């Protein structure tokens, strides 16, 4: 660009000189010679540029490609990894919530207990097992019979001596219910029985 800029400058100067000479020289016969000489000057100017170009060692001026150091690829990949971890966490959280709702819906099919809460543990490590269920914990309580409260309760006649055995029976019954629930959930999710825990919170 420097070379071209010099060429344009010299062309402008030559043309201006030609115009002045044209004005200053008296006879019109001289003007043809002036035109000839100036033309030769232009040719020399252009040829000089060409020869300069050919004689250059092609170590041409190359404008600096990047003025400011932009972010490197490594930096981009690190940022992307962080962002993709965030995306994954978000997805896993949505998934956990989805599975939790599913577990609660499944457990609430059981008529004998009321499901209070469900906790789900997932495998979040990278690899083949990503997303697999690890552990399910259910918190249940005895089903409240809110709608039945207005009804007349059946009269229960309790025999004092049988109370302990009844409580014991109730415990067994409750344990059976809990086990049944745990087994159902474990079977549904294809988990070993010990990976499902049901906590009975007595009211």
């Amino acid at each position: 660009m420097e070379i071209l800029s010099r060429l344009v400058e010299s062309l402008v100067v030559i043309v201006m000189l030609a115009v002045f000479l044209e004005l200053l020289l008296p006879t019109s016969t001289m003007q043809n010679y002036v035109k000839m000489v100036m033309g030769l000057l232009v040719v020399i100017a252009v040829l000089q540029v060409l020869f300069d170009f050919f004689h250059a060692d092609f170590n041409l001026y190359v404008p600096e490609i990047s003025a400011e150091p932009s972010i490197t690829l490594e930096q981009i990949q690190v940022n992307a990894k962080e962002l993709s971890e965030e995306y994954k966490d978000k997805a896993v959280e949505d998934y956990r919530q989805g599975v939790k709702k599913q577990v609660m819906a499944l457990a609430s099919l059981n008529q004998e207990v009321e499901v209070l809460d469900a906790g789900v543990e997932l495998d979040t490590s990278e690899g083949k097992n990503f997303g697999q269920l690890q552990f399910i914990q259910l918190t249940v309580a005895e089903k409240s019979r809110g709608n039945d409260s207005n009804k007349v309760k059946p009269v229960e006649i309790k025999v004092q001596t049988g109370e302990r055995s009844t409580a014991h029976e109730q415990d067994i019954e409750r344990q059976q219910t809990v086990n049944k629930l745990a087994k159902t959930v474990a079977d549904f999710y294809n988990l070993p029985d010990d990976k499902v825990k049901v906590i009975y919170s007595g009211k």
Partner: protein
Amino acid sequence: MNKKVCFFFVLMLSLLLTQPAQAEQGDNLVDLGISELDMNAVENVVQKLDDEIKQAVPELDFRILVSKLARGEIDWNAAEIFNWLIKVIFNEVLANLSLLGKLVVLAIITAVLQNLMTAFEKATVGKIAYFICYLVLVTMAVGTFTLTINIGREAVDNMVSFMQALLPLLLTLLAAMGGIASSALFHPIILGSITVIGTVIKNVVLPLIFFSAVLGVVNGVSAKFKVSRMADLFKTLSMTVLGLCSTVFLGILAAHGAAGAVTDGVALRTAKYTTDAFVPVVGRTLSDALEAVMGSALLMKNAVGIAGVVIIILITVLPLIKILAIAFIYRLAGALVQPIGDSEMADCLTQLGSSLLTVFGAVATVGLLFFFAITVVVGMGDLTVMLR
């Protein structure tokens, strides 16, 4: 060149008239990543943009623009934008009317001098007076021309620095969505070619157009001594370089876009298949959750891309309008001068106007190429997700 410019404007209009897709997920998903994303580099560049853009769009904040675009809250009113454009063009033309006045008055003086030339004792006196007037006019015209070329250079500079800030952000979003191969392919090539294009246009094409304009003006000084072919040569050179640059740039974008997206798409597909197949019962829920998050990440990336395009348009349109207004003034001055003055002066002004239109074309081409670059990077993410 005119076809390219028309194409550019049709693209811009179609983009402005398009409503961004509404977010179907909840707001929390749309917000995904907006707060965490490191947009500081882009915001800094937007803050540094010159005052005129800020006057045109006072509340220009990249982050807010992205979040509004993601939610589909931006109300594009085509009529309003069109009216604003017309208003800006007229304001620019009005602001440059003084230049028109000066040019026309000088041309009238030279015309009068030419007619009085015979009244002087020696014709040379009249000739010198005419010559001086012509020189004054040319100096004035070339001075404004230089200023206008600098406006173009500044616009190219702004665009390049904005792209250098925006692309790492877009590539980060692309890589986070699984387009790791694409982003690794794109990073050196796209950033390098953007800088090269900007530098070539700024340091080679625009100076060549300037040289051609100067030689065109000098050509009119003497009736006997012509350098118009040299001016043509410079103009052809500049157009060739511009054409080559755009062709090579578009070729690179097209070739790399497809290659990266297919690799990434296959990788994502494998990941999805393994989740579906190996996680019993709830594998589907997991892959659905992943897909939902991916969808909103895609939405985010597209919003960032569209916001980038909007900023590129803002950076390009205002300088382009200025250049166009001054080119119009030159052409108008040429048209007004022709009946009263001599044809050389009219030709000189018209030629300067045409050269400015070439500058307009060069700057618009840079804008268009950068627009394509953003579109390809954004589109490649969509392709990656589509190929899952």
